[in-house]
């Protein structure tokens, strides 16, 4: 569904992502793991067009999206839940979800999407009129995912959904991520620092180190890979 070939992204003279290639097949959950500054977030931001690739290409549904601006990439069906959640803090939960459906014109479909999101995160339905900035960290993460789902993506990128959340909430969020993948066949690219968790839910994983993919393979194999054990699985 998504094919990344030789992608490079740089900030000035620094190559944050240096010739990364991987593919995400339709219906799968694929994860990118790695430490701080490995280039995970940069890769996602380049895929959704927020950063410009210096080299390489990105194909989505057999269309080249490498040079498209972000709003056109979103329109292709690629959703992105950014690092730090980036909800619209001054808007209510309801308005945040409405913003998520910015490109959707069909009211009927938007209403369906809302019901779908409330089915996954009932907590959001209880908080509709509340200003999003006053939500707890976990609720904000739910809202960020809900907002992305309102755009009816075919492919969803999640950047560190577990960051800063209480362990119990992390479990809830990851259960729902798997549920979204199973029930709707939504393809997911997950970026995580918590490698153990990421390897549990994904089918394939790629390990990034200083902008390069150093290890790739099925998640079941990587779970016992000695190279990961010391550095990422503790």
């Amino acid at each position, binding site marked *: 569904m998504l094919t990344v070939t030789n992608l490079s992204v740089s900030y000035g003279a620094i190559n944050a992502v240096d010739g990364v290639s991987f593919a995400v097949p339709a219906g799968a959950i694929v994860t990118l793991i790695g430490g701080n500054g490995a280039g995970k977030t940069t890769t996602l931001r380049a895929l959704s067009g927020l950063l410009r690739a210096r080299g390489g290409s990105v194909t989505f549904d057999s269309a080249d999206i490498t040079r498209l601006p972000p709003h056109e990439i979103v329109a292709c069906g690629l959703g992105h839940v950014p690092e730090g959640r980036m909800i619209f803090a001054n808007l209510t939960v309801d308005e945040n979800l409405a913003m998520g459906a910015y490109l959707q014109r069909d009211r009927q479909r938007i209403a369906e999407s809302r019901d779908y999101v409330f089915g996954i995160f009932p907590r959001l339905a209880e908080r509709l009129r509340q200003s999003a*900035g006053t939500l707890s960290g976990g609720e904000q993460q739910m809202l960020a995912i809900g907002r992305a789902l309102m755009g009816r993506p075919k492919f969803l990128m999640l950047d560190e959904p577990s960051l800063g959340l209480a362990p119990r909430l992390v479990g809830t969020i990851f259960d729902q991520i798997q549920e979204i993948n199973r029930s709707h066949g939504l393809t997911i690219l997950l970026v995580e620092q918590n490698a153990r968790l990421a390897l549990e839910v994904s089918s394939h994983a790629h390990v990034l180190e200083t902008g390069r993919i150093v290890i790739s393979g099925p998640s079941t194999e990587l779970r016992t890979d000695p190279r990961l054990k010391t550095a990422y699985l503790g």
Partner: protein
Amino acid sequence: MTEFLQQLVNGLSLGAIYALIALGYTMVYGVLRFINFAHSEVFMVGAMIAWKLGQYLPNGTLWGGLVVLAAAMAGCAVLGVTIERLVYRPLRGTATLNVLITAIGVSLLLQSVFQHPRVFGATPQLFPAVFPSKNFTFGGLAISSNQLVVITVAALLIVVLQLVIFRTRMGRAMRAVALNPSAAQLVGVNLNAVISFTFALGSALAGAGGVLYALNYPSVEPLMGVMPGLKAFVAAVLGGIGSIPGAALGGLILGTIETLVGGSATLSTYKDAIAFAVLIFILLCRPTGLLGRAATEKV
């Protein structure tokens, strides 16, 4: 008392003009986080367009005045969008200071171009009475039709602006960009379109401000934007930069204070000093301005 009310009316009409210009500063700041110092020259160009067109239209008619006003607004919208497209957009992503200095450059460029004798020249020219002019008296209050035009047009434009921002799709996109440009793009907002639209809207308001200002102080010249532009910038900061109701409120407060002080025999020489002293005092008490909000981020 009558004297006070009279100055209040004068102050409101001046403040309404400041408010119109201040809205442009604050909207551009909202989406791009930078101060467009060329905005005061857009205001000047608005007055110039009206001055030129006023020579070909019959003066003293309501339709003629409205045509002039609409033309100045349209011309300024095009000018604002063009400046952004040609000058600010290539610099986007570079240090804010670079863009600020470039904005000052654009401002000086426009002033100099209009000072060229072939374009306009340095001598002030009389602004034609494009709207019908009459004086009304209510009790002891003297109100000119021009003041009524200023207050009515400014109030209407501010209401329309509110509707655009809170009731239209583009308005929603603008608010989203102001809150978080990356997140806005990730829900499908076209950033460049929003920025162009913001410049068009802000510049059209400045153009209207230019026409209304020239109506009340009936002369035009290339440097006429400098002082009102600075005052409007102060008004925007006073109200809380980035806040639209704040800009409107700041404009009205500043215009009223300036006129009230200017109307007093002993203090009139100090009217600008007092206006700026008020700014300093308000910012000392409320660093984010009257209606500004401090940005807080939850991690």
